[in-house]
């Protein structure tokens, strides 16, 4: 049986991991379909009389200080969180894998240059850079948020991939393939990538939750995807000032964040245990 089938079987037997993955699927479905049925997240039906109403039949999660429907905004906010979380993790891992492959395969000088660069980049205070860029970038599109979070988040992955490539490069089966005259790209595609894939998948999946939290932090400060577009972060910002009189405004997006990140982390832990059985505990 192939190692991937074995890993899939280990994952399927891990109950918390399966529950996490199911929850992720459910959240994705809610983000995709929910907004089609929900009220207009920007509509302010009556900013005077309908502001900060508690949950009721009309507004299942109540309304916010602008009389907007909290449920609808939470569903729309899920789109931003999921797109940014998954998108930035995938992009970061692709960048990191690319740089790691180049560093591991190219000559010593290129390797040294890239890895010293990564060392320095890891010392940069990421939040400060992101704050500085988004503070001047009014209303950055979600794509820019994805791009910049990825651009500041691939360094660790490149180290993992480089280390894997360096050890694989001298492995018997790679040496044999080279001796048989397989071209360089063929070796990368057929022999290196499949072996590098497992740690890369694990690192990407563990990143998703952290990136969702990072994006929420930025939009809580009013940066990145900006109001009035609902994000969980800026919904919490809206709810902060009415924390006492209308706690549901900040509680709904906060709980949504916790549930989403827990779901991703459960699935990611399961992936790690399935793909790297030695680390399983």
């Amino acid at each position, binding site marked *: 049986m192939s190692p991937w089938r074995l890993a899939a079987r280990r994952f399927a037997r891990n109950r918390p991991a399966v529950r996490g993955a199911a929850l992720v699927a459910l959240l994705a479905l809610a983000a995709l379909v929910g907004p089609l049925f929900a009220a207009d997240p920007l509509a302010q039906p009556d900013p005077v009389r309908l502001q900060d109403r508690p949950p009721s039949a009309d507004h299942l999660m109540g309304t916010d200080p602008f009389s907007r429907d909290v449920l609808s905004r939470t569903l729309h906010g899920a789109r931003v969180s999921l797109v940014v979380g998954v998108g930035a993790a995938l992009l970061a891992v692709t960048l990191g894998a690319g740089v790691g492959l180049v560093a591991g395969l190219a000559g010593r000088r290129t390797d040294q240059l890239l890895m010293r660069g990564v*060392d*320095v980049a*890891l*010392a*940069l*205070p*990421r*939040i*400060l*850079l992101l*704050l*500085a*860029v988004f*503070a*001047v970038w009014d209303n950055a599109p979600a794509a820019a948020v994805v791009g910049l979070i990825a651009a500041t988040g691939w360094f660790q992955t490149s180290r993992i991939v480089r280390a894997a490539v360096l050890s694989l490069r001298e492995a018997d089966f790679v040496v044999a393939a080279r001796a048989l005259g397989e071209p360089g790209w063929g070796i990368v595609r057929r022999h290196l990538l499949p072996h590098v894939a497992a740690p890369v998948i694990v690192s990407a999946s563990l990143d998703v*939750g952290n990136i969702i*939290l990072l994006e*929420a*932090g930025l939009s*809580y*400060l009013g940066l990145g995807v900006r109001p009035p577009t609902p994000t969980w*972060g800026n919904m*919490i910002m809206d709810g*902060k000032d009415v*924390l*006492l009189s209308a*706690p549901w405004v*900040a509680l709904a997006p*906060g709980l949504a*964040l*916790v549930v989403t*990140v*827990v779901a991703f*982390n*459960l699935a990611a832990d399961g992936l790690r245990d399935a793909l790297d059985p030695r*680390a399983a*505990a």
Partner: protein
Amino acid sequence: MLRFVARRLAFAVVSVAAVVLVTFLLVHAAPGAPMLGTPETIASPEVVARQRALFGLDRPLPEQLLRYAVNLARGRLGESFVLHRPVADVLAEAVPNTLLLGGTALLASLLLGLAAAAAQAARHHTRTDTVLGVVTLVFYSVPVFWLGLVLLLVFGEHLHWLPVAGMTSAAIHDRLPPLGRALDVARHLVLPAASLALVQAAAFARFQRAALLETLAAAHIRSARARGLPERAILLRHALRGALAPTITLAGLSVPYFLAGSVLIESIFGWPGLGRVTYDAIFARDYNVITAAALVAGVLVALGNLAADVAVAVADPRIRVDR
């Protein structure tokens, strides 16, 4: 060992220089300029030009960079455009407050995280392990600013146990005796520090549990067990000792987390620290303050990394430090 430390120190200097360079270029390349005033206080173009000339902002970028570097080498951080005070003074006030907040949170999270991990590893595959696993997973997944708001709501506003804003009780602080003043600060410290610490403790616990379980399976633990040492002694004397170096490493590498968290938490609890200074400066395009804050942040991160590297090298003789 000395050569190893010297090399890491040299690298730390290079990385701090890189942080300053990147930040300098980033803030100057960004659209928007300082000295333009707010819409209410629109200054005449002549006044703006004079102000910009005063700070050398009308010079070409390479010249500004060179000037900044020369001043920095002489230990001058310049003046804040907005606060009209030397940047060094602004930081001298803010940095100790952030170190107090971050240091307290770091210590608390290490103790809490290690205790949870030890409890889990000692009772592997039992209910304790499972429950603590769920608790740490949830805290690991909580946005730190939201946790701050929840703690503020529950312990500050509902139960009225603890103050929720600032570092001191303005009305009475100066009239308190020294011990009372320290207690006053400590009471203000609890909620912001707890917010930062609970999230990071969960991260530490998740990591340490895995590390402890791995150590408990190692050969020298098996032989200790075979000699009939009680489980408690094994955990405390053998397994936890092996966990000391990774703990220092974790603490060193967690510096960026506490810096990022301080930006969010300090704004919620009105804590007058580096995070708030940085946040305000970024929105005011206060170049000198932003760059200096990045410098301080870069130094703290570099020191953390240095501590982590040295801890690993001291603890693990297999790492050849002289190369």
